[in-house]
């Protein structure tokens, strides 16, 4: 579908407004608009033997953030540990995560994560799993630099294996942080256990000038 020419004008930067009530003021000058122009690598960490990673001083000029996680924990069980994240300063604001998922042998599940000081971010295969597999997660944080909106995120994470002796899971989760502060740092952490070597956490950004 293409937009009518009257909406496009001489500049492809498009503003479409819907006025339901009240008044709408027309800007006297064209607003600055930064189109989505690319996909950028912001930072990468390879934590080993530590329980957390913090990406700080995140530039604010991108449109949204993406985090890719390849992880294993040093937990000794044969299941999965959980990886969480919080924004900026710990203890500020309230977090909530809801999810849909599946575990081998127990079919599907849905619910809410029972903590409010962080978001659920990813599974981490434990070191006790017999076949040395790593977990996967891809996290999207849109509009992270907004100073007028609460923040939201999406994650898809799971653990798969070619071996029937390994635990396997998948979870799709969405979460919110009830703060309008721009996100300038992200801390990704495990509760009570550490990341195993081979873990990699990459921060990417989409849009902006790079």
């Amino acid at each position, binding site marked *: 579908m293409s937009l009518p020419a009257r909406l496009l004008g001489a500049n492809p930067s498009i503003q479409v407004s819907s006025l339901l009530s009240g008044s709408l003021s027309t800007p006297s000058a064209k607003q600055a608009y930064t189109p989505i122009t690319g996909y950028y*690598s912001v930072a990468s960490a390879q934590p080993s033997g530590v329980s957390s990673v913090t990406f700080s001083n995140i530039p604010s000029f991108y449109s949204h953030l993406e985090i890719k996680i390849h992880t294993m924990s040093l937990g000794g069980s044969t299941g999965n540990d959980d990886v969480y994240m919080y924004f900026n300063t710990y203890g500020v604001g309230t977090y909530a995560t809801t999810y849909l998922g599946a575990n081998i042998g127990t079919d599907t599940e849905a619910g809410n994560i029972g903590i409010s000081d962080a978001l659920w971010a990813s599974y981490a295969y434990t070191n006790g799993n017999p076949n040395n*597999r790593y977990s996967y997660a891809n996290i999207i944080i849109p509009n992270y630099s907004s100073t007028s909106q609460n923040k939201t995120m999406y994650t898809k994470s799971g653990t798969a294996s070619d071996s029937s002796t390994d635990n396997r899971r998948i979870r799709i989760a969405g979460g919110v942080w009830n703060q309008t502060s721009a996100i300038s740092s992200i801390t990704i952490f495990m509760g009570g256990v550490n990341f195993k070597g081979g873990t990699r956490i990459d921060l990417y950004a989409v849009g902006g000038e790079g």
Partner: protein
Amino acid sequence: MPQTYEPITKLSVTSGGTTFNFTSIPQTYSDLRLVIAGYGTATGFGGIIINGSTSAIYGTQGIYNSSNSVSQNSYDGNSNIYFTAAGDFATSYPNLIIMDFINYTNTSYAKTGSVSFYGKRPSASGNVIEERVFCVNTTSAISAISHNTFTLAEGSEVSLWGILRA
């Protein structure tokens, strides 16, 4: 800061029955993304193999819409990465498959990644949406990604992208 999401190769199918085999994949990226948009020439399983191997090195864990209810599937010891259940790779409606391969050049660990599949189910009423994670039990870097058990109809496109971390 340089952009890090780059096209590696793309196949535009002009003749039905086409397969694909992307070889000599550059080892200069961190992650890969494979996007398949199109039709099959026959319904059936859809799968991807790595480095030409059909050995029992693949496993997936998925969750999907099955006749308007949520179900899960868990496979191990497969001969390819199944991105959808039997009969779901449709011929008369477009399918969309997005696969992410993370840390694909490492030579120390098994490979892991994600599959998102959307397709019109030809053998039952309703559409299919399916999310999976996968494992490939090889410590070899991924240098080839190929079709397995399906062929593409005219108009389909397959593209491979490279993502480079800082």
